[in-house]
């Protein structure tokens, strides 16, 4: 019974995330629109777009190789698998055993690897440009993310995300300077990784500044649908990751539906909060010049490093 339940959980949590991903993006957009005194698009728009793309004919450039057509599936699958590693409302997530935090980052790396290759495949200047910039972002964002995970792993002595969350839940609430730095770093990384302002602007096709859109410019139809869905999932994934690592209070630690009932609304509140934070920051900040992006990313990396060091220096007396 327990095994079945846990298998169900393993399937249910990522599927829930997958299902909620377009919604989360829409919510962020809605908040943002409201903050900018606009009405914004309906919340179901992303779902309709996905359906529309999936139904449409896929057009592929003559110069594209088979990799171009395989990439969306791999990107989608690996992002979904990464999401499966996250405990959503229940810390004892079975997915977290298949893939711990480091594997999660690795899977995101795999997704990005294929995404970038897809961008390079057609051989247009935009694709190359987007790819080159994406790798610049990855160059710093990925290690910074790893360092964030390390900081928590050093405190909780595990790299299993569920176990991390559980450890934070079980311990007395402590104000840790290292967590502060790590949280700041994680948020900055998330913004960069998901291609949000101020690093990238998801709603523009101004070719000189775009990153993510540059890479997927040649995609259409079902391929585009998968790519976009994966991107939306990634944004939600980072939000849930933030929740799991830094705000796990409320997560169910036992496998019981009653605990889930408490956990789910709390999760929604937390996610909504994060969406609001993202919307506010996107509203008050302007997109950076590309030359400034390395500075931004270096700052994120440094913050993560500071988190790690402050953990070693301040928090863990030998």
């Amino acid at each position: 019974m327990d095994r079945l339940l846990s298998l169900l959980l393993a399937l249910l949590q990522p599927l829930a995330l997958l299902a909620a991903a377009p919604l989360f993006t829409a919510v962020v957009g809605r908040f943002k629109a409201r903050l900018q005194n606009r009405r914004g698009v309906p919340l179901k728009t992303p779902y309709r777009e996905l359906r529309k793309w999936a139904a449409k004919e896929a057009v592929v450039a003559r110069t594209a190789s088979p990799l171009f057509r395989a990439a969306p599936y791999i990107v989608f699958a690996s992002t979904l698998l990464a999401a499966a590693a996250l405990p959503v409302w229940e810390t004892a997530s079975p997915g977290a055993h298949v893939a711990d935090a480091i594997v999660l980052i690795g899977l995101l790396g795999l997704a990005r690897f294929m995404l970038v290759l897809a961008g390079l495949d057609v051989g247009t200047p935009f694709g190359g440009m987007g790819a080159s910039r994406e790798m610049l972002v990855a160059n710093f964002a990925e290690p910074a993310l790893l360092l964030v995970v390390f900081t928590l792993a050093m405190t909780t002595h595990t790299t299993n995300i569920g176990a991390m969350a559980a450890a934070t839940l079980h311990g007395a609430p402590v104000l840790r300077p290292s967590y502060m730095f790590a949280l700041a770093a994680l948020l900055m990384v998330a913004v960069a990784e998901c291609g949000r302002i101020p690093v990238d602007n998801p709603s523009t096709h101004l070719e000189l500044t775009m990153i993510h859109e540059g890479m997927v410019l040649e995609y259409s139809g079902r391929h585009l649908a998968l790519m976009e869905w994966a991107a939306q999932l990634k944004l939600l994934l980072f939000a849930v990751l933030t929740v799991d690592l830094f705000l796990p209070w409320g997560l169910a630690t036992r496998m019981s539906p009653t605990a889930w009932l408490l956990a789910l609304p709390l999760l929604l509140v937390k996610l909504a909060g994060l969406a609001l934070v993202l919307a506010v920051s996107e509203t008050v900040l302007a997109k950076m010049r590309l030359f400034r992006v390395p500075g931004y990313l270096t700052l994120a990396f440094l913050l993560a490093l500071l988190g790690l060091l402050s953990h070693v220096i301040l928090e863990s007396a030998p």
Partner: protein
Amino acid sequence: MNASWALPLAGLAVAAALGSAASSLLAARWPRALTVLAFPMLGVSGIAAQAAGLIALASGARQTTLLPAGLPGLPWHVAIDPLAGAFLLMLGAVLLPVALYGPGYVRAFRNGRDSLATLGACTGLFVAGMLGVLLAADAFLFMLAWELMSLASYFLVCFQHDQPESRRAAFVYLLLAQVAGLLILMAFGVLATTGGFAFPAMRAAHPDATWAAIAFILALMGFGTKAGLVPLHVWLPEAHPAAPSHISALMSAVMLKVALYGFLRVVFDLLGPPQWGYGITLVVVGATTALLGAMLAVQQVDLKRLLAYSSIENLGTVFLALGLAEIFQAAGHPAMAALALLAALFQALSHALLKALLFLGAGAVQHGAHTRSLEQMGGLLRRMPRTGWMFLVGCLGMSAVPPLSGFVSEWLTFQAALQAWRLHDSLLRILVPLAAASLALTTALAAVVFVRAFGIGFLGRARSRQVRHAHEVGDGMLAGQAWLVASIAGVALFPVLVASLLGSAVLQLTGRVPGSPGWLWLTPLGPTTASYAPLLVLAVLLGVGLLGWVVLRPRRGAPVRRVDAWGCGYAPPTPDMQFSAMGFAQPQRRVFAPVYALREGFAGSAYEVVAGDRSWSWIYRPLGALMDRTADLARRLQAGHVRRYLAWSLLTLLLLLWIVS
């Protein structure tokens, strides 16, 4: 099959390698000798080495014998133990595919002016030298085999000696190999002062702390030169591109590991008690090497140079892991040390297979498209699909993404580094996480390196005529690569089994086995702390991907419509409008500018950017200039005037008389 088979099998491997060298000599008259004799014998050698290594690892015992050769009072000691077995396994695993690949590759040289006999003979000697290093159990035989390895590979680097850069590369290579050899010799000299030159005597004797530290430094510099540690790495990016590709594969995949083996043998086996000071040195050197290697790899245009710098990076991470092992061992955490050491060995094995695959792939590209320059490539995936897809596997592996083998070793290293909280010394507690941070940065850079290599080289559109007309290589060459892909898949998907094999070498050095029960879940620190199941990862990836494909498959079954690429409404983009290799790496060049010796300007009609290695301008060129100045000074002694010579004679006599009186 019992343990006593290991040594005869290893002997067979050496004999087959020597036989391959000897039979290659026939190639001067009969070029097919290479195909029908030399390469099959290399394959036999590879299989025998693999078998010997497996037996040694499985049995966990040491077998020793003496051969009646060598110096008076110091016959050749030959031994095989799990540590040697682990590296024999690596060697054999690479040698066999190289033997498959070789005949097709050397066919291109058949009509050249370079002697195939030389190529084959030196290859055989090179392999025999490497095997000898792994099997030697006394300093003299070790050095003999070591230098044989260096010398034979020198001739191989010099094989295409019409090209000045080959000659230069070979010279730099042999010079640094000589430096390395002598440093290692001195390290053995220090170790031998108390006992003798046989390894058992060295193991039994422990030099005092100062001498041990000196021996450590000597060994680090000596083996580090061969392993490509910064700043002693400069030979590597020169020599690898110059050698024929199957040789580059052997050099990068195996020879660097042989250097690693030597270091492990001396420092972890013979030197005596571990010191955390050694560990710190290793971590710092390893991290620096890894970072610089990756930073420089990102800027290379020559595919093989890029791979060479990537090898530097990988060896850096291996040494970093070794440093962690040393630190934990010295701090009294043998289980953690075992984990770090396992990470190092796993990384070595994984890198051996991956880098061999990539070099063979680069050789195939050179064979099929006649270029090594990324700036001329593009779209090779369509011209050479099989090579291309296999190259992609290599690239993914080197970028350390799951579920490939590069990720496993990285994951293990991180897990070891995350045990820093167990340490008591505050310096170490800071250093180890910092090392992990630099490793994280390195890994990210490695991903950039290989995205760029594959994306620019194999995707997009051809940037030159010869690449546009590239052709796929023959079956033998593909078979070699495919074999490696299969091995990589095995190592990547069944890391627990590989870890338990390598574990016997770890046990020998640290006294602990880093165990994971079962075969599916890699859980070296217990299932709740960290776990990784690559087979499941792959299964899910494939499942989801297939599911997506099935679900989204177009109903009417119409083929995908092909159109021109989007050109913003203008004419379709031309190949020249693609991002170039140097353009792709421009952000990194800007961010890490101080690391590079940048040179920009017009070279003929093309604008050229070169991001060079500062080791040359900071260390080696000044040294060379100093050497020349000293030589000019010494020439003054030979002034040409007989009276001055006589005056020297008189003065020497007077001085000597004054001294003795």
